[in-house]
């Protein structure tokens, strides 16, 4: 296990470095420069030169790269060009919101998907399946913003049941993550974006659960369990579900990583102050340090969760972990 862990960590470091370097290249080799945000009738060539120098963009590329990696190692993501604050503190404000949104919606999607998938595995070939599977696929096929707008129109604009956007009601103190989590107002705001994401995300766990469940149910040990006179419930819970959950759990970890960056669209529709929106806004306004910081953080979350998924699989499935121990 330790060797597997070390191996995975080394791998993690390599991928992180590669992703960080790629993002540096991407942002620095792109045309255009951030001074373009400041265009106003009083903007002059001197203004530009001063700004460029202040952003450190007058140095040679390799120097910028070295500095970038060094700062990254120190956890310093630089200063936002436009917000006048350290990128890290801006991201630290946004990341928890995204994590909460992701965990809640993914959790809901997986809870539903697992139960519904297991149910559909039992009712294989029936009328329920003929309706449920296309329905699950359809929600997964709908563009998130389309789905989100339909929900917003129906449940917020027309009826006023849910707020139209944001994470807190106007003027509520921003507070810490902890205070947000115990605030009813926050959950009320979370409901619609989380529902939209959950609807979008439920398809995968549902289908995966169903497929693996079917596979597991055909395994000999399930027949054996029946022969042992075990109850149906105990067969499903102790044997089938536990085995079928392995790939689903792995998919959950992978989904967690992917969703942190994939929420961009939903965050925009619902004005959710998460890291995806920080990225989009920063990219649109050429706030390089902020955009890059957000990108690297999203990528890091993804890489990290990929590794967690690997390790989770190894931990949950005794066949893998013991194999590694040898």
């Amino acid at each position, binding site marked *: 296990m330790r060797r597997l862990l070390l191996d995975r960590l080394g791998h993690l470091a390599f991928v992180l470095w590669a992703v960080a370097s790629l993002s540096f290249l991407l942002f620095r080799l792109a045309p255009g420069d951030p001074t373009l945000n400041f265009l106003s009738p009083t903007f002059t060539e001197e203004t530009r030169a001063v700004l460029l120098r202040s952003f450190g963009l007058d140095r040679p590329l390799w120097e910028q790269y070295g500095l970038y990696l060094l700062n990254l190692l120190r956890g310093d993501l630089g200063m936002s060009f436009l917000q006048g604050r350290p990128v890290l503190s801006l991201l630290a404000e946004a990341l928890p919101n995204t994590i909460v949104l992701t965990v809640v919606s993914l959790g809901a999607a997986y809870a539903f998907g697992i139960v519904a998938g297991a149910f559909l595995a039992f009712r294989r070939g029936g009328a329920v399946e003929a309706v449920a599977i296309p329905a699950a*696929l359809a929600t997964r*096929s709908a563009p998130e913003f389309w789905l989100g*707008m339909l929900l917003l129109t129906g449940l917020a604009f027309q009826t006023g049941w849910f707020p139209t956007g944001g994470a807190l009601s106007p003027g509520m103190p921003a507070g810490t993550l902890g205070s947000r989590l115990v605030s009813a107002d926050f959950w009320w705001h979370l409901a619609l974006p989380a529902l939209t994401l959950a609807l979008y995300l439920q398809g995968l766990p549902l289908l995966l659960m169903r*497929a693996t469940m079917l596979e597991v149910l*055909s395994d000999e040990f399930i027949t054996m369990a029946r022969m042992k006179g075990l109850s149906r419930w105990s067969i499903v819970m102790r044997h089938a579900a536990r085995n079928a959950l392995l790939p689903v759990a792995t998919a959950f970890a992978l989904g967690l990583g992917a969703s942190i*960056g*994939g929420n961009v669209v939903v965050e925009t529709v619902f004005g959710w102050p998460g890291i995806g929106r920080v990225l989009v806004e920063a990219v649109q306004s050429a706030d390089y340090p902020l955009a890059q910081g957000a990108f690297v953080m999203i*990528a890091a979350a*993804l890489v990290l969760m*990929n590794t967690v998924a690997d390790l989770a699989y190894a931990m949950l499935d005794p066949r893998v972990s013991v194999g590694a121990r040898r």
Partner: protein
Amino acid sequence: MPCWTRGCPSVRGASAVFRLLRNEPFAAVGGLIYAVVALVALLAPLIAPYNPREILRTGRRVARYMPVSAEYWLGTTSSGRDVLSQVIYGTRAALLVGLTAAVAVVAIGTVLGLLSGYLGGWVDKAVTRGADVVLGLPFLPSMLVVAALTRPGTAVIIGSVALLLWPNTARVIRAQVLSLRERAWVDAARMTGCSSTRIMFVHILPQVLPLAALYGSVAIGWAILAEASASFLGFGDPETVSWGVMLQEAYANQALSRGAWNWFTPPGVAIVLMVMAGFLISRGSEKLLFPKLAEQ
């Protein structure tokens, strides 16, 4: 070259597809959707009542927000364009984006998967490492950054989908190739003097193509959704008539508040159907590929 082509079980492919269509209603529906879309795309100029980009007028004024009528079956947009014609022409963009991206994903993924699985060694290492790095790049954010920093539009979307989604295909193909290369007929081919290239591309490739096609059909959906998302965030190509751009226009112009369901709904439904078709096909063929499930 005599080699072993007859010994390969790939001949089963065609009849399997036929059986699939008969026994798999899901896949058949998916195929039907694709067929209809392809037909509409082909005949677009004949079916569409208007040029989808034309700004229609009533007198001097632009014909904005015309309701559903005999003249405009699905009404018009805020800029006075015929919704039905746009939906019809949208099939072309959907096919272009979807198919090109899917073919690219399958091509890159399959070739790299083949090379890495069959050749092993440093090639394998490089490909796996590369795949890991690419899997570490968040899909939508990467596409947005590239689109924002280069030229937004269809090409960037297709390119991003191809460059970011190949690792999934490559991984599966690699695993498949690893098991195939141990088979007797590969040994036999090797002994009859087939070159590695030939074994890979003439013998093994046909074996893994159905699996790759499965990933391709899902990639079609991804590409279309990606195009919609990118358009929504303002990184699409508004000059093309696509469902994603339509939705974005409807969103940006508040079609819902205008009560213009006739504008907001059709492109969304079209996207759902098209993406779903890919999923349906891949779900159906899952039975072909994983016969263990089919036995149930």
